[in-house]
């Protein structure tokens, strides 16, 4: 794949990831309207798991590394977000909800790392 075609594929996958994030976030926020926003955390967990899995499969099962770029950098990168998590945390601090703010950022990043590790671990299992 040429450089331009690859850049377009990655960006297209990122665009789809962004729309998926919007839909998942909307659905979860409507169903669970809580102080600690669940929607951003959910998309970050899902995206980190998928990226971990793809990375593991590329490293140990000869999955084409281009899929890491398109699905990983593109789709998972568009699906997950750090800016929303940062904004939601700052907003909660602003509303003097320091506990909820701390949980939002710490649990948000922590669960993502865990989901990524689980995906990576699954991807490393010999088939």
């Amino acid at each position, binding site marked *: 794949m040429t450089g331009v075609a690859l*850049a377009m594929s*990655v*960006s*297209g*996958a*990122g*665009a*789809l*990831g*962004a*729309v998926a*994030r*919007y839909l998942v976030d909307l659905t979860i926020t409507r169903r669970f309207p809580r102080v600690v926003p669940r929607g951003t955390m959910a998309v*970050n967990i899902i*995206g*980190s798991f*998928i*990226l*971990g899995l793809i*990375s593991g499969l590329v490293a140990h099962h000869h999955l084409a590394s281009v899929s890491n*770029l398109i699905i*990983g*950098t*593109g789709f*998972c*990168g*568009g*699906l*997950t*977000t*750090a*800016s*929303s*998590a*940062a*904004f939601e*945390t*700052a*907003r909660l*601090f*602003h509303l003097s909800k320091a506990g909820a*703010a701390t949980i939002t*950022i*710490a649990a*948000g*990043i922590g669960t*993502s*790392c865990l*989901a*990524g*590790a689980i*995906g*990576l671990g699954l991807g490393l299992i010999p088939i």
Partner: protein
Amino acid sequence: MLVILVGGFLGTLCRYELSTHWSQSGTAFPLTIFTINVSGSLLIGIILTAIIEKLRPTRYLRPLTCVGFLGGWTTMSTLAVESDHLISSNHPEVAFAYVFATMIVTPLVAALGISLAHLLPRSREADEKAPDQ
């Protein structure tokens, strides 16, 4: 939905181009994604606050800039898997520094962005909509 697609496309393209031209070794502090996430958090603080409080109501600006572009620009999945890789390659101290730095710096710069946006003048339409604020 279409504007989210456009914003997400552009945000991902910028992140992809930057990480292609500024790649790093796998064991160093992942400064590329850190820079992307910090800058995106600062921008969302400024832009989202300006859209909510300072500008007249618009339908497309927030999905284009915040949901699409900044959502596509920043990423949590790469941060998570980069940290996992750092831990599995015996660099847990770099992974923890990376995660804690992101945890502390991104909300701080988002708060800074919100404060900066509060310094902006309000548009006349926004004043008319909420004269008591």
